[in-house]
């Protein structure tokens, strides 16, 4: 039995992960009263996957380091963002999550669309 961290969740896979995580974040930001048992895993999914997966899809960091960088980068992004909000007296948890998650989801979605030039005209 060999321990093997998957070497490649392909570039598209990371985009899909970022999109799903971003949507999870948007859901938490937009739904006011999700039960904690639902909201916590969704938010954790966004923080630990979303921003990091987006960066991973662009930079393709080596494995297995990527499996550590994806969650820690997301964590760091939220730590710095929330620190900045509190520091500058602009505490908006829901809005900040909506912006962060919306950006991650939007960028991932755009990346998943086929390039315009590659579309073959019908007929």
């Amino acid at each position, binding site marked *: *039995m*060999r*321990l*093997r*961290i998957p070497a490649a969740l392909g570039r598209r896979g990371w985009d899909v992960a970022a999109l799903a995580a971003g949507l999870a974040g948007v859901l*938490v*930001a937009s739904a006011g009263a*999700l*039960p*904690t048992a639902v*909201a*916590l895993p969704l*938010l954790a999914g966004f923080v630990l996957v979303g921003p990091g997966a987006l*960066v991973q899809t662009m*930079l393709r*960091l*080596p494995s*297995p*380091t990527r*499996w*550590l*960088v994806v*969650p*820690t*980068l997301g*964590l*760091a*992004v*939220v*730590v*710095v963002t*929330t*620190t900045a*909000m*509190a*520091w500058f*007296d*602009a*505490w908006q*948890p*829901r809005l*900040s*999550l909506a912006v962060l998650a919306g950006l991650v989801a939007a960028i991932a979605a755009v990346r998943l669309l086929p390039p315009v030039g590659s579309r073959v005209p019908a007929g």
Partner: protein
Amino acid sequence: MLGQERSAPVLVSGNAPAPTVARPGGAVASGWVLPAALLAASVAAWLVAAPSLSTDTIDNRGLLFAASPLFAVSLVLCALAFLVAVGGRRHGLAALVLGVSVVLTRLPTAVAVSLPLYSWTYKHFGVIDYVSTYGHLDHGVDIYHSWPGMFTLFAWVNELTGTNSFQLALWFTPVYQLALTAAIYVMARAWRLGRGPALVAAFIAHTANWVAQDYFSPQAVAMLLAVGVLALLAHSGKGRRAIGTPHPAAVWVALPIYAGVVVSHQLTPFWLMIVIGAGCVFGQIRPRWVMVVFAATVIGWTALNYDVVSSYGSIFHFDPMGNVARNVNGGNPSDGQRLTSLAGRFTTISTWLVTGVVLLLRWRRREQRRLTLTLAALALGSFTVLLGQGYGGEAVFRVFLYSIPGCALVIASAVERWLTGRARWGRTGRLAAVVSLLLLTGAAAQAFYGAWFANRVDQDALEASVWIVEKAPADAMVLALAPGAPGRVVARYTEFVRNNRDFDGGVDAWDGWLGTDFKDGRVNEMTDAMLGDNHPTYAVITAQMKVYNAYYGLFPPGAIERFENQLLTNPHWHTLVHTPSLTVLVINQAAA
């Protein structure tokens, strides 16, 4: 295995790749049955012992002695299962056993108590509550508001998900330790250790970490992020000096993670700077000038908060011997505390000694000397923490904590060679390695669990503490005889701190009070002085304080009860609560 999977030429460990078929001296090498059976026995023993983990029978030697002996047996069996699995190169099974080991070791901190451990955890709740309540920071009130990353993170989580800090803190340690152990494994792989050595590194980092900085704290968050930075640094080199597979963006991805460390904890980024500096100087991190960017980040943030730092004394205060001192001094500790202290020292010194020997051997063998110097900085660079500002007597713990990832990285390959019988003396070497690591496991577990009862927080003490901070006038003082009361739990604590930074200081810190038996008239003199000060003063005596005192021996036996009785019978003190586990009094200014 080492150096085979990637083309970069630099290896952290110079040993040859492990053979995949021939397993010298290893009857157990081909089997998964023995480690699996040991694992099953370990889990079964833990489950049988589980009800005893929440015992109220206090033993100054800690939980390992107070709970069923099967608890200690389960931890040792699990460690043995891991070592046998690694020895047989069953890496998947070893990873599973390591995960279970983390759970068995740390789960009692969540399931055997109803409130989070350590009275000082609760100070963090107050900062989180402050951010949630007011949406900003109170710069200057204490050091937490200047390094708020962890607090703002969890205030944000609480607000978005409906969790509260108590729930998060209760489950934080086992979840965090799992994450940190996995992170160390990945970091070790990034630093080009093979699967076996990387698993051993993660095991050592988990097992040796007795300092209990894995609770709900800024230190814990910063440490996890720091390991992410360290993994990325391995990819930040060029050419033959690169440690891992070079990636041009790795060092720049490390920068925002480093920024997360910088805003979360005041000490961790400086420790990382030592490693980054060494990596840049000795060629493992390129471009070299990136060091300036990292340094500017931490120096800039520290400069922003220099007023707060300097209020605790000079940042360049040079007192290494003072920093070596621990945070609990004096008194006459119990035999249990002495045993626990001995176990902690054994774990720490043996880890450092073995690391030093391995580094010296690398140096003598001329194995990539520049990398050896960077590894030395990673493993032992944390000693420079002692040269800086005092850290509340905790600096020496931080030195060990920061050294753990590096020491684990340095030691792991040699240990794995012993365990797999590829080093000298075959089976004898393997046996010696297994016995040594089991000894380390036992000692570290004792060091971790020795102060268990002194660190348990009671519900009534928490309620009293919250009540005082919510209801008392902001110029009030809260008098505690010894550590053992959760304080500063809610946002309003800042109003008290603005009046008096040490509003809830312990009597044990007063000159000449530590160790007294209260048979003299000092309690009456103290009361008279407080009446003269004209500040409302509350006295809190908790059951946890008595347990803490019995463990650390700050005062002679019976002294706390004597102090308590003197207050109860003094007409200037009005009793608010008096139960077997809690006494709260307030000084009665009207009766003066």
